[in-house]
């Protein structure tokens, strides 16, 4: 629900009339206010009005479902009517609204009961559903029809709502209680609104379709459907994004504001409404991060007596208090009030809306800026259906709400553009503006207080800490992209070579022999001459029957000497994810890294490592990173960096000792180690001096701690 309107009004009214905020706020006619400020409220153009209306309804539905722990199923229907009017129907399966709250939710702009609460909600950003009721009434004179059903009631409320704009109150009419059927089934709980408004439906980058597509990306737990009909009932646009996870976002905790993130107006209001009798207790009870010692220090710096009553504090004294907040060292605000989407769900969300070949996602740790906790998440997808010409698509989100306008002026875009994308494999002419290529980048800013450039709330304003966090996240996904591109290039080259020796060469041999009436030559020495390298092919596939990932690594020795290697595979080891079959055995090298020993791989021979993994879902894991230990190069795998691996093991041992909070760190450090192991560029000749003789294979020296090898006998030792 939208409870953030106090802030909206405050900001907007301040711009309209800076004097005497408090009294003005009460006197101003709501409809006059709406009329004057419709550009801030998202109803300034006919095209935008319908997007804003859908946004308010859908955001409310998602927030309500999240609070009630219901997996949301949302349906949006738009029907074009004559003369630039359209009918909008939004329906959800949320908890519904109790009968006596309907008026409040739909009819009141100012719902002050929770404005002290600071937490990450979607509704923070809009005028709320009331705006839709009002816009409908102002432009078409019609009422908004609402059906609401809560689980505990036997029937639903059906009611028409309008607004008494002078009293700032909803007016109800035609209220009845009746059962509610949709598609022949009785609705258990939910909310449906039907309204007629002056608006125009348009397609493209700024459209209802794009808004819902983006919403579905950051809400992988939601199923969202859109149907748009022409005047004659013909479907002219539609979309259906089905949930890809059953996991609801976690419930966010409410926190008190942090002194470093507060403005004068807000402080004055808090003082005015305070129940506390002393300033010290006021500070400790109403703010986070303020200890008794800190409270005393603040008041000392502000030259205010500790025993003063908050209600009596004057404006200049409040200013002094605000100034002294910045001079005192305070505890950071708690960060469990944030609800990130989480890497794997971003991947799922992106895959729901965009067909791509590669996805790299990063969820940064929460950070704090000016007393506000925030967290950055970034996802990058590449290839597939994405258009290769033109700039990449940027998908911006603040607290899971898509930002669709003012892309160029947004901090997120600026941070994205500040990265040198050329070094990560995207075209970036002049290193300026958006990079080009078949890619889309998602940026999500989760924060208790998103700072926008204007009341339109479409662009995040500049902030050094947030910029830096976004930039770092970009560099991380950029590295992922670079590795992917290198790997695809290597894979393509290797595939070409395989085609050459397995298909073309035998055909040349057959044809020339036929033509000349001669015997076919022995091709194995020719193949060795052509390839002259060790190749590795890997594949991860999903078995829908067993619900397992089947992983296969094949190593081909196309050199004139026998080879011995340890092959290491990175796999998504985690709680609930385990290896099922692994006939070659091998051993765990460190968390998320498994190793197998291949003793002797003779010239012209190949060996396969197969294993299956359980506990993931389809699409979670599509690409394996393979490393090796041993002499020479392997095309298709990178040499492991032993020093870094050792370092990592130490970190892991420490972490195990400390037991808690270990997991994310480990994975992070593994990521960093593996990123630093540079892949082999192109096809290179393996140096001769480290080749072993085919008849007397020299085994690689195994480090002492590796003595517990098992599964070695399965190795290809012929």
């Amino acid at each position: 629900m939208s409870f953030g309107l106090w802030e909206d009004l405050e900001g907007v009214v301040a711009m309209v009339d800076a004097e005497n905020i408090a009294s003005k706020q009460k006197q101003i006619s709501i409809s006059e206010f709406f009329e004057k400020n419709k550009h801030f409220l998202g109803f300034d153009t006919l095209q935008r009005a319908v997007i804003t209306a859908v946004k308010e309804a859908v955001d409310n539905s998602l927030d309500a479902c999240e609070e009630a722990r219901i997996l949301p199923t949302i349906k949006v229907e738009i029907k074009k009517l004559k003369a630039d009017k359209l009918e909008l129907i939004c329906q959800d399966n949320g908890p519904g609204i109790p009968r006596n709250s309907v008026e409040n939710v739909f009819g009141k702009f100012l719902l002050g009961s929770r404005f002290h609460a600071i937490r990450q909600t979607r509704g923070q950003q809009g005028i709320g559903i009331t705006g839709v009721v009002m816009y409908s009434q102002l432009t078409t004179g019609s009422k908004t029809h609402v059906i609401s059903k809560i689980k505990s009631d036997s029937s639903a409320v059906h009611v028409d709502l309008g607004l008494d704009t002078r009293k700032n109150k909803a007016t109800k009419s035609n209220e009845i209680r009746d059962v509610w059927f949709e598609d022949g089934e009785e609705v258990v709980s939910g909310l449906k609104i039907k309204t007629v408004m002056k608006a125009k439906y348009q397609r493209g980058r700024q459209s209802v379709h794009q808004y819902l597509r983006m919403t579905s990306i950051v809400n992988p737990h939601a199923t969202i459907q859109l149907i748009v009909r022409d005047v004659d009932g013909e479907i002219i646009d539609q979309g259906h994004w089905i949930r890809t996870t059953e996991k609801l976002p976690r419930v966010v905790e409410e926190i008190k504001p942090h002194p470093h993130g507060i403005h004068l107006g807000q402080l004055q209001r808090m003082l005015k409404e305070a129940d506390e009798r002393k300033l010290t207790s006021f500070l400790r009870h109403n703010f986070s991060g303020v200890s008794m010692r800190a409270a005393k220090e603040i008041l000392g710096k502000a030259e205010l007596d500790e025993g003063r009553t908050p209600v009596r504090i004057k404006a200049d004294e409040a200013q002094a208090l605000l100034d002294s907040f910045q001079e005192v060292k305070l505890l950071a605000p708690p960060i469990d009030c944030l609800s990130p989407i989480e890497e794997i769900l971003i991947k799922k969300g992106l895959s729901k809306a965009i067909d791509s070949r590669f996805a790299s996602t990063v969820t940064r740790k929460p950070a704090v800026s000016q007393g506000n906790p925030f967290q950055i998440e970034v996802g990058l997808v590449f290839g597939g259906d994405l258009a290769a010409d033109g700039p990449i698509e940027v998908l911006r989100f603040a607290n899971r709400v898509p930002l669709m306008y003012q892309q160029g002026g947004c901090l997120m875009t600026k941070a994205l553009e500040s990265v040198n994308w050329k070094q990560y494999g995207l075209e970036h002419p002049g290193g300026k503006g958006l990079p080009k290529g078949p890619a889309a980048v998602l940026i999500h800013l989760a924060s208790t207080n998103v700072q926008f450039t204007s009341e339109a709330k479409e662009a995040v304003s500049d902030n050094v800490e947030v910029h830096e966090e976004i930039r770092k996240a970009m560099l991380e996904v950029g590295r992922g992209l670079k590795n992917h591109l290198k790997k695809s290039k290597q894979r393509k080259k290797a595939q070409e070579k395989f085609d050459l020796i397995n298909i073309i060469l035998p055909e040349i041999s057959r044809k020339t022999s036929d033509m000349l009436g001669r015997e076919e030559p022995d091709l194995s020495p020719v193949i060795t001459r052509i390839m002259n390298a060790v190749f590795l092919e890997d594949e991860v596939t999903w078995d829908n029957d067993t619900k397992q990932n089947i992983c296969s690594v094949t190593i081909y020795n196309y050199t004139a000497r026998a080879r011995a290697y340890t092959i290491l595979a990175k796999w998504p080891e985690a709680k609930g994810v385990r290896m099922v079959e692994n006939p070659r055995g091998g051993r765990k090298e460190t968390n998320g890294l498994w190793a197998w020993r291949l003793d002797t791989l003779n010239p012209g021979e190949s060996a396969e490592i197969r294993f299956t993994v359980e506990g993931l879902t389809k699409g979670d894991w599509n690409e394996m990173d393979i490393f090796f230990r041993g002499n020479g190069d392997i095309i298709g795998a990178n040499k492991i960096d032993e020093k870094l691996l050792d370092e990592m093991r130490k970190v892991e041992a420490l972490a195990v000792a400390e037991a808690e909070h270990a997991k994310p760190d480990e994975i992070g450090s593994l990521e960093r180690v593996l990123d630093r192991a540079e892949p082999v560029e192109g096809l290179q000749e393996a140096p001769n001096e480290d080749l072993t003789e085919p008849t007397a294979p020299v085994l690689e020296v195994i480090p002492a701690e590796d003595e517990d090898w098992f599964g070695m006998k399965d190795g290809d030792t012929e």
Partner: protein
Amino acid sequence: MSANGYTKEQVIEALHDIAGEMHNKMLKGEPPTMTLPVRTKQNISFDSKLGVYKYGKKRSTRDATSLGSARQLLRALHVTEFIEEMIEAGKSSTLREMYYISEGWGHGKFGSQNESNNLAEDLEIITKCMREDFKLRPEEDGARIIGNITLQERNRRGEWMRINCRDDVGDSGYGVPYNVELEKIRLVDHDVDFIMAIETGGMFDRLVENGFDESARCALVHLKGQPARSTRRIIKRMNEEWNLPVLVFLDGDPWSYRIYASIAYGAIKTAHISEYLATPSAVYLGIRAGDIESYDLPADDLSSKDIQALNAELSDPRFADAEWQEEIKLMLELGKKAEQQSLAKYGLDFVTETYLPEKLAEILGR
């Protein structure tokens, strides 16, 4: 029989030698290869015995160590098989047809028409056969001829038809077939003093309409831009067998210079068969760079591509003599080019009554 006098068996044997090179390499445990001359202007040189430009000694070897060249080798084998089949069946196909037939060749399939054309030329160069020997026809049709010459063409029923290129043809003239070798065309008789090759259809029709072939006692050959092989070959035969001078009348631009060079000295792409196609005694009549000034012709500015082409010609061995260097530099200096039909500035008859007679007097001394 063909221009070079190869029999079917010799053609097939020459093709089999290519397969032989590949097979021998594989027997030695080495990747199969195909060796052929480098086909760029850096590797053409003047053959003083033949009077034309031929490929030099630079050779390149394609070996099957990369996917691209391995495919080329496989394609060459597919094409060889295809040619053998056609020779056996007494059929022929166009290069375009071969390109489509290659759809069924798996990894030997051509990526573009250009690839199949180039490979056909590669095979000609390696085997010293001509594409007619391979039963491969070009897509482009040959030229048109009008003038008092008589020749015999063997029609589809195998009968020899006698055709006079003035009396037995309409206004569009005699159409030159793709094969103009002895087995198809015999040059019988003529009553003309020279051959005039003309670049554009507009100018050809102007000269025909003005009756220039009769008034100047010549045979007019329409080149249709860059002339097809058969056009160059029939000009060459008329020049050799009838001992007739050949005058070339083109636009005055860098591309016309190249057309002339391909007629007189041989084209870079077909330097392996220059001695069959080139007419070293052909004379460039006009439009000359100097004509733009002396006749005050309407002219266009040279484009950047034109200037690039002229500069490339300065280093082309075919334009190495002093007269050509002067001509090219003059055009660069003027910065102008002119079309044949710009002569119409002085009326429709100017070309036949003034320009050409003046040029002929200069060249043939009459």
